[in-house]
């Protein structure tokens, strides 16, 4: 769920690469770093 208290949070597609292969997941990261 969207962290409600802080609008600076953004959804990000994040790449994961394990021994079984590469895939992506949707996570929340602070948008501070732009």
């Amino acid at each position, binding site marked *: 769920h969207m962290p409600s208290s802080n609008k600076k949070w953004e959804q990000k597609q994040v790449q994961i690469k394990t021994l079984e292969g590469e*895939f992506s997941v949707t996570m929340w990261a602070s948008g501070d770093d732009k």
Partner: protein
Amino acid sequence: GNTKQNMIRSFDWGSYILGSHAEGSPVACFKHVPVSDCWENISIGMKVEVQNLDCDLTNTVYWIATVMKLAGYKALLRYEGFGSDGQKDFWINLCHKDVHPVGWCATSGKPLVPPKTIQHKYADWKDYLVKRLTGSRTLPIHFYSKVQEGISNHRFVKSTHVEVVNRMCVSSMRVATVEEVIGGRLRLKYDDAKEEGDEFWCHMRSALLHPVGWSLQVGHKLHAPQEYRSQCLSKTTMQKYDVMDATPDMFPQMKNPPEGYKFQVGMKLEAIDPLNLSAICVASVMKVLKNNYLMIGIDGSIAQNGSDWFCYHATSPCIFPVGFCEVNGLILTPPRETKGSFKWFDYLKQTRSVAAPVKLFDKEIPKHGFKPGMKLEAVDLMEPRLICVATVAKVVGRLLRIHFDGWESEYDQWVDCESPDLYPIGWCELMGYPVEGPRLKTEVP
């Protein structure tokens, strides 16, 4: 190498926190430390990529871990897949260069390998990770560069000239040169030092530190050669500073006292005793300097010639109106010669003096977030080169009583909540500076 050595010497905060069931003061409480402004975005449940230490491979591999507990900069991490099993949990400083946002391994070509203890727990790790990670939080991408920016972004560099309180006689200032800067803390060598080790440590935002020319400008006593004094005049009036001089713009802007009210010589108040920081004492305004600075003396002091008078700005959070201790249930240290119980009403009458108007102490109380019992790293202001394991013992508005773990309460020190001498757990480790662990009491048979 030096940093690594200090890391080894560093105190084991992790087991101390778990053993004492204490809470660490959140990093956001300390406005003067790196990433304080974005710490609100760091939370329990957050996922990161870290080295997988539960592994027999010779090359460095990584795995995803969850923040289980936070204590200052330090986090207790649990590798993904362990569920409620904490056997391989470990503490790490979240500002360490080997803590990464999820996704870093894929973009850096680093392998993600599950820990060997749980390697066979799931047949399909991909499916498991998608479920665990989707919708969770991770670190901002540039978190580590923000940490680095916070560590090195200081205007004070080695060889900067300053004026700083004389540690041997607190009523006077001396000229000093910055020898070293560690996380905004300055190691200062007095320019007139006659012996090795005649040094002083203070933070660059400390109220004890001032620009070149400050003492003569406000009328504060200064131990300095005539040549320095003559140069100061042209420096402050013509703004002709040397390149290595600390200038007024490098210091925090002081607030103005409430309009229409002024401190006057003889007015009584309560003040933290600069030579015994665990005591709040009956005090007097001994001198009014320029730019709203005051020389405060502790009533009943036996020091000669005002050598223990101390300079406080009129808006300092370390001076209080008459009755402050009584209102807040604190012990007020009366003048030395007091017989029986001390009563302000009788004392003012007896000394024919007046209390400084309460309006002068109209200080806002910031939402600082400190609570009693919270652990932190605090400078021992009586030996300011030392940073010690400490606990917030009491909170009175914006005033904190800092207890040094393992020491008796008579060594406690009162400090303001915005003091730059307070740091979150893990600050020393981050800066490669040793932290003094709690005093271990030796049992006498």
